[in-house]
């Protein structure tokens, strides 16, 4: 056997290993960026809802001025949600906002003129869609996170992930109480 054969084989194997490492690393980066994009998509939709609410409140005011309480609660919840810090706090504030909007639309049922108003109907459609978009963007975020986390936990990507400090991403959860309830549910007692 020629003296260069063994170093050549070792070099070849080393090169393949490096190429493979690059491939796995780039795959992980792509998935991680996807989770970040999906997360910012949620913020885009939340922002859209903040922007729609003042219009809605103005329109309702013209027809149902003595529902001041409900309107003020909506505005308050909106401002609270806009100022919320941290994922958990924001999720809680968004939940309150969703609740106050539901009340507002329920109140609107009592005002036939308002319900016939084109502007109100259009805003109602936009807000309904925005609620859906928030839900779907969260769903998509969780889909992407679950793909990323699965990839990250599987062998051999977990080795590469560990080497370069990739951490699993957090799922979006509605709120602490609800998450606890979900965790509680499957417990079987004898």
């Amino acid at each position, binding site marked *: 056997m020629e003296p260069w054969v063994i170093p050549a084989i070792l070099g070849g194997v080393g090169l393949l290993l490096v190429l493979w490492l690059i491939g796995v690393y780039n795959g992980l980066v792509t998935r991680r960026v*996807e989770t970040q994009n*999906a997360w910012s*998509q949620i913020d885009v*939709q939340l922002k859209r809802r903040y922007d729609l609410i003042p219009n809605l409140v103005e329109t309702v005011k013209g027809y149902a001025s003595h529902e001041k309480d409900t309107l003020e609660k909506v505005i308050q919840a909106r401002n609270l949600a806009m100022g919320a810090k941290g994922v958990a706090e924001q999720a809680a504030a968004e939940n309150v906002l969703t609740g106050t909007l539901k009340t507002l639309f329920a109140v609107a049922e009592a005002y036939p003129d308002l319900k016939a108003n084109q502007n109100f109907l*259009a805003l109602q*459609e*936009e807000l*309904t*869609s925005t609620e*859906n*978009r928030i*839900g*779907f*963007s*969260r*769903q*998509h975020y*969780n*889909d*992407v996170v679950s793909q990323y986390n699965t990839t990250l936990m599987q062998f051999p990507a977990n080795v590469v992930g560990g080497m370069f400090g990739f951490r699993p991403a957090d*799922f*979006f*959860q*509605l709120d602490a109480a*609800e*998450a606890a309830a*979900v965790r509680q549910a499957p417990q079987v007692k004898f």
Partner: protein
Amino acid sequence: MPVTFRDLIADNKRKSFWLVAGFCLFIIAAALILALGVAAYWFPDAIAHLDFRQAALVGALAGGFAFLVSTLSYFEGDSLILGISGAREIAHRDDPELFNVVEEMAIAAGLPMPRVYLILDPAPNAFATGRDPEHASVAITTGLRAMLNRDELQGVIAHEMSHVRNYDIRLMLLLAVLIGTIVMLSDLFWQMLRFTSGGSRGSKSKSDKGGGVIVLVILVLALLFALVAPILAQIIQLAVSRQREFLADASAVELTRNPLGLAGALRKLDADPHELKSANRGTAHLFIANPIKKFSDRGQHIWASHPPIQERIARLEALAGAGATRQVPAAN
């Protein structure tokens, strides 16, 4: 069997590539055989003095033509199909609910917003087309739009967005245009053959010597080619699209988490007696449900471009039954 939608995408891209490659080879082979057949028909001696440079020229010309057609259908096929279907692009203000539902499904699938088209036709149907999710269009007939509630509309659009995400649209687009081209060419050839055999009978009998048998063989071969090609092409097209509908139904439920919306829409589609005027055999496989209603045209097994709608509804309702245990906690 592909497992995730990433596998489906890879599978569809590969199939699209091989479809184009196969199309180019087919056109080259067809051109060579036809050239040979025509040459043999006019000059029976030609077989004895085959010129390979001429054959290469014919092959190169045919290959260039096939490549041009493929490139054109890749980039412009969606406009062609939308044009043939009589689809009109709409904006948010034309139909806010439809537009919003499409955008919601684009968000759920994590895709850019496709263009939205309306087809003025009372027959209920919908389809998606384009070369990739960045260049995709979703079209729905006014008939379907009018009969669906928001949940059902969401189911239909989710089905179409699944076709977009999985790159079904690219494969289906190429199938529609390339196979359309093959069918058109073989029609053309048939007419040419009838015309030439009518016009040149006298000159042929003059030089009818030993080459006669070879002439006959090549003619038969050419005829077979022209006859079999469109049939073969249709079978491939149909086989490819049936399984795809089940997959798109399943992915649609993954997006909406509501199997009953799509099931309700399919039931309404099934019950409607209208025929889609602008659809034909060439574009039938693009639609959410078979647009061809006449039984003789529709057939059952190998000729059907879609699985029986009742079976699709049954599968969706089975999903709804299992829904209680399958709910993802953060779906809302």
